[in-house]
């Protein structure tokens, strides 16, 4: 029961980091820019959420599988294969969870007072300073909520993960895949134990994270 736990944590944390960077960046960009098709792009960024994870997983393997355009390039250029690896699980979870942090970040950035960013600029701040020292801290509560959701989703993701990473015990079998398998195998006691474990771990981590965030306030 411990090996899937570490794997799950590793996958969920890395996926949160990956989706977090991408989603916060996208949210920032979409909050500031307006262009034709802006609203459509915004809605399209939610699609990984709208499609059943298994379907997302399916299209992901079409893309990054050995036959896929991206997969072939990754393999020939760097010798990286994503199918049946925990890195693949990270990718799947990150893609599925991306809409969560993106939407939260965009709303949070739009709610920050632009006049504070302007004040920072008159004080000589470059754009990256404005971002890291003003906009990001001011949007922290909304972004924190988005990251909590992202992490939770990454912990619970199994549809797309199962497709890309497979269900290889000890190697790519995350806790949620294990719970799923246990339920499927009719092993109720194991399913319950795993459910309690995953719930406890998640609550503990989220509580710690919220403490840390509060301390910064």
């Amino acid at each position, binding site marked *: 029961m411990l090996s899937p736990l570490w794997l799950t944590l590793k996958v969920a944390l890395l996926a949160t980091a990956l989706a977090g960077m991408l989603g916060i960046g996208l949210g920032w960009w979409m909050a500031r820019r307006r262009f034709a098709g802006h609203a459509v792009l915004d809605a399209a960024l939610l699609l990984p959420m709208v499609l059943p994870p298994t379907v997302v997983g399916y299209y992901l393997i079409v893309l990054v*599988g050995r036959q896929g355009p991206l997969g072939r390039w990754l393999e020939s250029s760097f010798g990286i294969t994503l*199918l049946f690896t925990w890195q693949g699980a990270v990718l799947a979870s990150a893609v599925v969870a991306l809409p969560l942090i993106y939407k939260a970040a965009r709303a949070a950035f739009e709610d920050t007072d632009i006049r504070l960013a302007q004040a920072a600029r008159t004080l000589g701040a470059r754009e990256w300073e404005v971002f890291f020292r003003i906009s990001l801290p001011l949007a922290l509560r909304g972004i924190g909520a988005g990251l909590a959701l992202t992490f939770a989703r990454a912990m619970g993701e199994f549809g797309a993960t199962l497709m890309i990473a*497979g*269900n290889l*015990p000890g190697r790519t079998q995350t806790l949620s895949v294990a719970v799923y398998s246990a339920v499927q195998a009719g092993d109720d006691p194991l399913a319950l134990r795993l459910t309690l474990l995953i719930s406890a771990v998640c609550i503990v981590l989220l509580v710690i994270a919220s403490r840390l965030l509060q301390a910064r306030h």
Partner: protein
Amino acid sequence: QEIIVSAAASLTNAFQSVGKAFEQAHPGRKVTFNFAASGALLAQMQQGAPVDVFASADQPTMDKAVAAGLIAEGSRADFVRNELVLIVPAARTQVPVRLKDLEAPAYRRIAAGTPASVPVGRYTMGVVEQAGLATALQPKWIFGESVRQVLDYVARDEVDAGFVYRTDAIVRKEQTRVAFAVPTPSPVSYPIAQLAASRQAATARAFIAFVRSAEGQKILQGFGFSQP
């Protein structure tokens, strides 16, 4: 030396035991299983998943794998049979004895696997059609995402009857009762094969041989499967 065996979800419990026995019999060799619905397994292999052995719950999925050129020639073999059975909640006093009984109003809801994606559902629809009951039963169906879901519905007394494999019924023998076995037009046989791309062909073949050996078959029978 490690091989990856992609096997249908319904083999989960049985293959885990087989795998342990195989590793004991062949020290230094390791089997890692990848359990999922047969369709998902096929999609993975088509995209180049590094699988050595594929065990499907039905022939059509394996046929597609062969057609896609994934399977090493001559390695395909049927290794177990399963049986379609009709089960009812254990508490029921009235038990149907033939398919036609399901027409009775007492059977309001009947669970089966989703025909499009769950093999057991395909078999079910086949026999129902053959018995000329398709229209009569049509409004009664509740489709599950997997055979386990069908089993669960029956075990919880949410439906009046359900079609599952014998191997599944065994898992919940306290809460369910097998009414009768349903003969299928084509037998429910599971094919196993080595992947053409396998880099561990020897181990893969050894595993397939073990599954088909007397020892392997004994384990599988313990989980309710019968010989091919």
